[in-house]
């Protein structure tokens, strides 16, 4: 399904919408839907995102699930939320504080009110504010009645009863009737932000086509909510965010995990190798396995292993067989894979490891985000065990970083770790659909080696430029040889214990990874080339840091920003760049992992801005920190 979105066409401050009420025009708005896990907030949020995409805004979303396990209905632990920020400009984060909060029950209100901007709009389902629910949310008195919400503009809507009323004559069970309340809320919010109902109606038809009663109920609830909006008395609740001026082209919505999946399928196509994905389910990486499993038609072999060790073992087997061997997991799984990953380092095999980081240590907070695996993937193996580490910076970038990781893995015959995280995995943004025919093929060097004279074959002889070893998978006559985890003799690959050889091989393994930098883009700096202050970031914080740097610039500070997608090796010019500024600030969602590497490598007194909260960095707080440091 392809639709065409209108282009941004000038801007006025008010306009008149179909409903006849005055519409405020705004540059950017952030809305958060919050309710019980059973209230369908993720669904509502995703529908809103689709409608917003079709409308033509740039946008970014942030789903926030409760812990994996179901919590009791109405409890604080059971609150699920979905935030979306949309704008007439390009945006890079799902926003810090929402302008509008939809709270489907007291627990949702309690958990999320603190985030709402002062004077923001609060839409509450007053039906849910029963004494039982208030108690579950630890409210001593009803906040709708005790004046504690006076700082906000409130729409108290009887969402449950109105939704039930709207579907009354369809003969649904009470439970099913009540379930339509998210569509009622959605309809109301669509009115508030002048979204078109069409995309959602289409979706309802597609999804519930086979259950016409349910489809009809959802439609009715949506219309009823929309109609309810027109009756609202809040003066400036009707708002329009004009479409954004985006690079022309065909767009879709994408999350980081979806982009990983598409990247893998595309890499399989570009290498002309079948994809083998060995994985063991773990939040937030499981969906990569789940989505790939549904793509057998692309020759994808998914293997749900008995554990993470087996998962990487099978991927190593596939890589050894000459295929595109990939394994994916999250932090605890990386810990388990580390011994086998070391085998891939020693045997020098082209292996891709996806690490969708989550909050730790140990089981930690499985559904929350964090950038705390960088040092683990760098150093979490016995012996000197260098490998290549990349990190994606946005949901859509996950796609391109997979291609880059696969290119490096084959060109250098090395394992590569690609870091994503919970935030990237789940957040959605508009993404220009790439043209598969415009993407460069990925070279698979062993295809050429298989045709050389077997006499010239030595499994640990190396390409003089890349130091990639002569990797030839089984099956080729005359090239029979054995590899393994014991130290190998330079060139021949035989088992070797000599001190000199071990030193040489240690050096070669290190140098090979360093040489990747010769085949990587240099780091680009956004902003002044040198001067007072550089903000250096990596991974999923890109959006927040970009936003914060821009905000600080608008506050009058001249600040440079550079963002690392290559963590090991570093870009060739990184040392040069960090030495050109008086101050270097490294914001990270950890206690300073990149900072340690930068300080050790370049001896610059880089400072950290560190949040370890399980949440993506707050652009607002970071802006303050940047301004403070810039002003010092």
């Amino acid at each position, binding site marked *: 399904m392809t639709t065409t979105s209108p282009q941004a066409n000038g801007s006025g401050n008010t306009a008149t919408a179909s409903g006849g009420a005055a519409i405020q025009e705004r540059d950017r708005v952030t809305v958060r839907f919050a309710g019980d896990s059973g209230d369908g907030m993720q669904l509502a949020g995703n529908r809103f995102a689709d409608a917003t995409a079709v409308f033509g805004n740039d946008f970014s979303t942030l789903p926030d699930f409760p812990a994996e396990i179901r919590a009791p209905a109405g409890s604080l632990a059971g609150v699920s939320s979905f935030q979306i920020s949309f704008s007439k400009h390009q945006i890079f984060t799902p926003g810090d504080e929402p302008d509008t909060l939809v709270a489907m029950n007291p627990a949702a209100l309690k958990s999320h009110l603190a985030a709402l901007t002062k004077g923001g709009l609060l839409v509450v389902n007053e039906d849910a504010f029963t004494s039982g629910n208030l108690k579950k949310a630890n409210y001593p008195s009803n906040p709708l009645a005790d004046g504690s919400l006076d700082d906000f503009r409130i729409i108290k809507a009887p969402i449950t009863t109105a939704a039930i009323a709207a579907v009354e004559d369809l003969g649904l069970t009470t439970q099913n009737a009540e379930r339509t309340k998210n569509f009622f809320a959605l309809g109301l919010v669509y009115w508030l932000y002048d979204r078109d109902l069409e995309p959602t109606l289409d979706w309802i038809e597609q999804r519930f086509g086979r259950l016409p009663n349910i489809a009809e109920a959802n439609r009715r609830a949506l219309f009823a909510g929309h109609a309810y909006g027109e009756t609202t008395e809040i003066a400036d609740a009707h708002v329009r965010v004009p479409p954004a001026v985006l690079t022309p082209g065909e767009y879709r919505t994408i999350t980081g995990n979806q982009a990983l999946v598409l990247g893998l399928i595309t890499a399989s196509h570009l290498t002309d190798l079948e994809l083998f994905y060995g994985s063991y389910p773990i939040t937030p990486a499981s969906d990569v396995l789940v989505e790939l499993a549904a793509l057998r038609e692309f020759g994808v072999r998914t293997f749900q292993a008995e554990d993470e060790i*087996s998962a990487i073992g099978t991927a190593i087997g596939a890589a050894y067989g000459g295929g595109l061997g990939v394994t994916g997991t999250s932090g605890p799984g990386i810990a388990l894979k580390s*011994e086998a990953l070391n085998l891939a380092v020693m045997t020098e095999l082209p292996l891709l490891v996806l690490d969708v980081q989550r909050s730790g240590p140990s089981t930690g907070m499985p559904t929350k985000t964090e950038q705390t695996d960088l040092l683990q993937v760098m150093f979490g193996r016995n012996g000197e065990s260098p490998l290549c580490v990349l990190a994606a910076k946005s949901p859509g970038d996950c796609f391109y970083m997979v291609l880059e990781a696969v290119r490096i893995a084959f060109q250098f015959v090395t394992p590569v770790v690609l870091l994503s995280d919970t935030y990237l995995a789940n957040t959605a943004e508009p993404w220009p659909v790439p043209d598969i025919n415009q993407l460069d093929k990925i070279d698979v060097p062993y295809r050429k080696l298989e045709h050389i004279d077997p006499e010239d074959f030595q499994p640990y002889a190396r390409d003089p430029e890349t130091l990639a070893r002569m990797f030839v998978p089984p*099956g080729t006559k005359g090239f029979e040889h054995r590899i393994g985890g014991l130290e190998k003799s330079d060139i021949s690959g035989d088992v070797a214990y000599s001190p000199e050889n071990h030193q040489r091989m240690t050096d070669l393994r290190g140098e090979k990874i360093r040489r990747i930098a010769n085949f990587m883009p240099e780091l680009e700096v956004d902003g002044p080339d040198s001067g007072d202050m550089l903000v250096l970031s990596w991974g999923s914080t890109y959006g927040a840091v970009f936003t914060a740097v821009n905000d600080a610039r608008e506050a009058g500070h001249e600040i440079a920003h550079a963002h690392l997608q290559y963590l090991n090796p570093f870009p060739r010019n990184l040392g040069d760049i960090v030495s050109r500024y008086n101050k270097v600030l490294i914001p990270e969602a950890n206690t300073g992992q990149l900072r340690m590497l930068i300080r050790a490598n370049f001896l610059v007194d880089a400072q950290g801005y560190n949040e370890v909260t399980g949440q993506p960095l707050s652009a607002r707080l970071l802006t303050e920190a940047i301004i403070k440091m810039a002003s010092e």
Partner: protein
Amino acid sequence: MVLHTPPSPELVENIIPIADEDLSRKDYASDVDTRWCPGCGDYSILAQMQRSLSNINVAPEKMVFVSGIGCSSRFPYYMNTYGMHSIHGRAPTIASGLKLSRPDLQVFVITGDGDALSIGGNHLLHVLRRNVDVKIFLFNNRIYGLTKGQYSPTSELGKVTKSSPVGTTERPLNPLSVALASEATFVARSYDTDPQHLQTTIEQAARHHGAAFVEILQNCNIFNDRAFADYTDREVRDERLLYLEHGQQMLFGENQDKGLAVSATGLRVVDAHGPDAGLILHHDATRPSPDVHQLLARCNYPEMPVPMGVIRQVTAPTYGDYLDGQIEVQKFKNRHDIAQLLKGRSTWQVE
């Protein structure tokens, strides 16, 4: 919902890649010096493996030996085929990934009692359950050889070893029982000092379509000498071993004068010339239920004769058959158009 997509028949065949020219045992031997203690049972197993492969005339470039860590796991170095000496206990996983992505290869796993049943127990269980088409040869010497003599999961309760100076405190596993409980489709046993039987058993395993599990009793003359001598010594073999043959009666004894029959509580020995001779079982390795196979697996010296040979061999589609079948069916049923995939469910145009 349970979907059964039975793999198409041509996928479910066992195809051993055969060499163009006639190869001898030597062609399968690499030029690496073998590094086992003089007298180690591993030497004989190596020789029989090379002979078996030459009997079948497997194409060496299509053979891959994957091993873990242990004395036994040095095996791949001595074979002039492809091979990986991997890490402790994980060979079944590497072999699985290799075989599933390269169905054209013949993949053998070499492992020890520690490698396969201690650190690697879970992988063994799952590779057998999944019926991945790899052949697993467990060299059981009831000891950790490479690390110099600690007990293993097959060491007898109370055994004195380096790490159990006053005897172990744990009961051993029966590798065949474990393999059967893992739903293995091929389960066999042989031993180092009967070259002919070992060769035959290796060949039978190689020809099986699906995961094969072969326990090979192997003497570690340094740390656990004569562990199996009570029944494998030439003088006592005939009396104490039961050589199984599919379709044949379960007879043993120097003059084949004893046999096994079912009793209400398991198996029992009967006189082949006595009144219960008619009750002596015929060995049916292909019976779908592993019940009788489990009974055989648990026959132990001295109460019972020790079974040798193929205990179980049943036909079932392999994991790869199913997987390849799904790919085939889905390719047939669905478009595999990357451009379309990249677009996803819906797109919009910015102009």
